């Protein structure tokens, strides 16, 4: 599945993809919860972050990073394919800012 080789450019990673299943596996291994309980817990955890972010509330996780909500004003964009101008409506978006620790780990592991 994974063919790592040259350094890719752009957002597409060259390695494999981790999903909920692998996180649940780690929870079973480390804490010994049942699969069902682990899956539910992971769901709850992501749910709590989601509910806060949806309510406009930032979530700060030391050593990992911060999720916050930003409001963007309406602006004129351009369809990169057709070159046509279009109005991009005002919107609220979630942003994630990785901690210095995580950034460093990613640089160390990937360069």
């Amino acid at each position: 599945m994974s063919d790592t080789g040259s350094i890719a450019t752009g957002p597409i990673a060259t390695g494999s993809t981790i999903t909920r299943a692998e996180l649940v596996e780690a929870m079973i291994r480390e804490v010994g919860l049942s699969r069902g309980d682990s899956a539910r817990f992971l769901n709850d955890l992501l749910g709590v972050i989601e509910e806060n972010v949806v309510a406009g509330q930032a979530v700060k996780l030391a050593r990992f990073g911060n999720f916050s909500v930003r409001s963007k004003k309406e602006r004129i964009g351009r369809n990169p394919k057709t070159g046509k101008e279009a109005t991009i409506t005002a919107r609220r978006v979630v942003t994630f800012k990785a901690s210095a620790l995580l950034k460093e780990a990613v640089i160390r592991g990937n360069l």
Partner: protein
Amino acid sequence: MILTCLQGSPPVVRSELIATLSDQNPHLRPADVERLVDIVFDEISAALARGDRVELRGFGAFSVRKRAARTGRNPRTGKPVEVEAKAAPFFRAGKELRARVDKGETPKGK
């Protein structure tokens, strides 16, 4: 304008996350709740450090954005400059989360 200042209340931190999760999961020991939270974020971090992508359906995906080293040019002088390779963690919210954040719904059922 209301839109420009949404983050009046202080951010939620890890300890509050653990408290909420402990309430939601009374069958788990608080110490285990704490360990589970750490395991999740440590696993995601480790995956990113390996260059793997982490996809969490409905929530979003964490990935590593990489840029190979290249020879750039100083736009003013035209002189070639070595630009170092870069790698940085990146998060993209999933469709549902993006839509919900944009609407700014109040918490639903569960």
